[in-house]
């Protein structure tokens, strides 16, 4: 625990160093960010300790808040999220050192540094807090720090709007969270998590707590249809911040949900069913909207919603397994879902950093302005390729492993229980997988392959080693987990043992059984790489003494091929999105080229968020219309207002008289009955 406290202090120092007035900006940014990165590295140690099976003592400090207690503890569930937090923050902050320099002229970077450090600190507190008051305090600091980071480019109106939307949504969530913890605290008679865990008294408030927690944490995590802030805030924030937001902040929602579920010693099956349904909806709709985007960060934001859906599917299967007392399904679902939290945190922050690197080089987030970037930025290209393969859940990378567990949970559930809902998980996951592959072949292919579509893309350059190293590190971690999942399964076994409703002995058997299967998966992944290497060698030998020429791409006889003829992100996705036209409802403006020698044509498409841009305005219009009718009361004439006062007073009198008469009657009747009885 000491190391953890040291890490927190170092991170705090890193943030506070930005308040020192004298340092020149360049050096200050290196010192401050360096301290934050150092703190993250130190903080990894206790997290890894706990995950490898050696517990760390908890820490209690006096804290003069009613019901509050400054108690920090690292259990395996906390440690998993801390691991993710420190890896992603360390990478994102390192990446940010060169990245933010482009803003240095017109912007002070002090705020970024301060709020980055407070964001990391508050999340570290959140993941270790053992008391509801402390949890809420950390939750609020996290939400506000993230807000100030999102509105970094506050001269842009879009950014301000996105920030405001985020602020409203996160506080709506906090409101629900207050109720959740009040209910839990009253039932357990304490705000301490150790008192809540496994407490049978919680069963009375189970349903309202679960539903409210689902809303509160669902807003943060981005469950459909509560996701509306996500696709606005992620593109608005600077890339390292979006990496942190998508990699860790939205996972805080998953952490909270898992934590609250872990308190309950048992729960009904509908919790799991509800989570599975939310997961299916978020997963499929998230990836469909992603497919229709051409802003790369918006696309990635929608993919976060999709992956949160996959995580919810895993947790849902886990909960179903727990409530049906089927340890295989329970263990596989929970382990798969929580493992996907780690995996998604790694590859999504990698992809956001990649998007940042491309933005740094080209100044654009629109994929249709890029192309051929692989030749200019091979390092970024390689990292984004690794991230893209991983996010599609393809072997031999880490996404495959966690999805494999969730698939297995789903198949096992289907084998043993003949309910249609249970079976839907498998085709849903398959559909999500196919759509994700479509989406990331598009995102990677349009940006990095082919030829450059604009001058900026043709002039792109890598941003330097400080931007590349964090991405390479994250990519290496994705490979490592994908190739050697056997190391991580015992870790996941420990994480799932946190759940009060789980039976550790049974889980241990399942873990042992699955370890064998995962070692086969590991060999399989190594096998694929081996076969690829072998075939590459064969190809090399075959081509050794043969003529290998370079030429133009075959244009079917047409010789004036230009880069504008390439498939763009919109045209690539057009066929698949046209099949779900009614759902996505893209706004299309076409100006057809006419005549035999057409001079110009024009096509523009934009896919708004159906919930935010269509459904909510519709609801709002309804409320507005209703209120307009009441508006007639507001006349602006004093006579009328006096009349209202009079009417109100008379009403009050009648009501009061009525009340008095009732009371009098009661009293009278009581006396009557009393006297009768006498």
């Amino acid at each position, binding site marked *: 625990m000491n190391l953890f406290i040291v890490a927190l202090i170092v991170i705090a120092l890193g943030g506070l160093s930005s308040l020192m007035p004298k340092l020149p900006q360049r050096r200050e940014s290196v010192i401050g960010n360096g301290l934050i990165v150092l703190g993250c590295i130190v903080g990894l140690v206790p997290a890894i300790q706990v995950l490898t099976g050696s517990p760390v003592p908890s820490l209690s400090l006096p804290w003069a808040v009613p019901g509050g207690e400054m108690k920090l503890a690292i259990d395996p569930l906390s440690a998993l999220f801390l691991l993710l937090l420190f890896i992603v923050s360390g990478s994102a902050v390192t990446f940010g050192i060169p990245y933010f320099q482009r803003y240095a002229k017109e912007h002070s970077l002090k705020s970024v540094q301060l709020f980055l450090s407070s964001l990391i600190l508050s999340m570290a507190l959140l993941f270790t807090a053992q008391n509801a008051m402390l949890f809420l305090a950390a939750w609020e600091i996290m939400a506000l720090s993230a807000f100030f980071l999102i509105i970094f480019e506050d001269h842009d109106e879009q950014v301000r709007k996105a920030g405001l939307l985020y602020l409203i949504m996160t506080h709506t969530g906090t409101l629900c969270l207050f109720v959740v913890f009040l209910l839990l605290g009253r039932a357990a008679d304490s705000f301490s998590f150790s008192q809540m865990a496994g407490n049978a008294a919680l069963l009375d408030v189970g349903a309202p707590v679960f539903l409210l927690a689902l809303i509160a944490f669902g807003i943060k995590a981005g469950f459909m249809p509560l996701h509306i802030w996500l696709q606005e805030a992620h593109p608005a924030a600077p890339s390292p911040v979006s990496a942190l937001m998508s990699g860790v902040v939205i996972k805080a929602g998953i952490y909270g949900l898992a934590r609250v579920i872990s308190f309950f010693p048992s729960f009904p099956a509908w919790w799991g069913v509800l989570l599975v349904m939310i997961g299916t909806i978020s997963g499929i709709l998230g990836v469909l909207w992603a497919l229709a985007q051409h802003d790369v960060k918006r696309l990635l934001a929608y993919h976060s919603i999709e992956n949160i859906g996959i995580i919810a599917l895993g947790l849902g299967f886990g909960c179903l397994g727990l409530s049906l007392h089927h340890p295989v399904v329970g263990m596989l679902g929970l382990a798969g879902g929580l493992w996907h939290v780690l995996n998604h945190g790694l590859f999504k922050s990698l992809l956001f950093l990649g998007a940042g690197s491309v933005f740094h080089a080209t100044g654009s987030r629109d994929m249709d302005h890029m192309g051929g970037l*692989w030749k200019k930025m091979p390092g970024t290209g390689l990292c984004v390729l690794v991230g893209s*393969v991983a996010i*599609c859940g*393809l*072997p031999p990378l880490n996404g*495959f492993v966690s999805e*494999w567990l969730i698939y*297995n949970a789903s*198949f096992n559930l*289907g*084998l043993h229980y*003949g*309910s*249609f809902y249970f*079976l839907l998980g*498998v*085709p*849903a996951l*398959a*559909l999500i*997988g*196919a*759509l994700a*592959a*479509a989406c990331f*072949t598009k995102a990677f*292919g*349009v940006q990095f*392959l*082919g*030829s450059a579509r604009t001058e900026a893309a043709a002039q792109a350059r890598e941003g330097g080693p400080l931007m590349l190293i964090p991405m390479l590190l994250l990519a290496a971690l994705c490979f490592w987990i994908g190739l050697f999942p056997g190391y991580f399964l015992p870790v996941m076994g420990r994480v799932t043992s946190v759940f009060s409703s789980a039976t550790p002995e049974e889980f241990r058997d399942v873990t042992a059984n699955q370890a064998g*299967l995962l070692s086969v998966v590991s060999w*399989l992944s190594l*096998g*694929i790489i081996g*076969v*690829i290497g072998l*075939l590459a060698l*064969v*190809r090399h030998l*075959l*081509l050794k003494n*043969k003529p*290998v*020429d*370079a*030429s*133009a*791409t*075959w*244009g*079917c006889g047409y010789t004036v091929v230009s880069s504008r*003829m*390439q*498939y763009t992100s919109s*045209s*690539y996705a057009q*066929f*698949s999105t046209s*099949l779900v036209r009614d759902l996505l409802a893209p706004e299309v403006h076409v100006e057809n080229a006419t005549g035999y020698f057409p001079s110009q044509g024009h096509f523009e498409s934009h896919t708004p968020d159906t919930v935010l841009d269509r459904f909510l305005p519709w609801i709002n219009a309804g409320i507005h219309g209703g209120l307009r009718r009441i508006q007639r009361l507001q006349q602006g004439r004093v006579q009328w207002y006096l009349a209202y006062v009079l009417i109100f007073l008379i009403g009050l009198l009648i009501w009061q008289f009525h009340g008095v008469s009732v009371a009098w009657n009661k009293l009278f009747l009581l006396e009557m009955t009393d006297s009768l009885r006498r």
Partner: protein
Amino acid sequence: MLTTFIPLGVTLVAAPLVPGLINKTKAAFAGRQGPPLFQLYFDLLKLLNKGAVYSRVTTWIFRAGPIVSLASVIVAALFVPVAGTASLSFSGDIIAFAYLLGLGRFFTVLAALDTGSSFEGMGASREVTFAMFAEPTLFIIFVILARVTGSLSLSSMLTQAPLVGTPSMAGLLALVVFSLFIVCLAENSRIPVDDPATHLELTMIHEVMVLDHGGPDLAFILYGASIKLFVMVAMLAHLVFPMPDGSPVQSGLVFGSLMALITIVIGIVESAMARLRMVRVPRLLMAACMIACFGMIISLR
């Protein structure tokens, strides 16, 4: 140890026969003599001995595409039984099988986009769109087979499913075989989804994606495609008729004749039908998906 790899070896050696047999069938229907049965072997040999021409636009993704797709198909072929036994089988290998095919598709599509040609982009766009239907259908079929046999490995699913002797099973299997057949046609770009015989029409999918590949790269692609076709036909072969328990020779003969039969059926379909209009293809695939869904509902009882 070596005997474990016999099924994979048979797959790798015999795979180019399947397209040859389809072409023979089509030739017979058209009243032609047609290319020899072993034509694909000759083509592959010739291509392997050629040099290569690469577009200046391309990067090493273009060169990696054929290698990764062939490698992933070969590894996926490990799980598919030949005459009742597979080289490798473990609980959950169905997921690995489907995702390996997905990996191959991912890199084929990237290689196509790497050329910067609108033809290849078009093919890539269509390929991923049809996968949207084919993959869930394949997984629904796996769910049905898992429920029927209680197993999660491809080889035991396929070998045990026709042995379940209940009357409703026959109907269920018919649904499974029908939708798997359509998935097989779509995944292997056969008529009525795609036409493997031409590649310069604007309507093509797979052939147009590999337009710029040549030499050993094209050989890898053609070989990989034939393995994929062999593997899916083998899956169908196990479902339509149970493999006998007897000697390897006996089951090998049964398997071989079933493979030939299904291949000829594909050839007949290709001779008798025209390719569907592009906008109709999703409907066909959706129908296959719905049929599989019916099967899933039946399997719930």
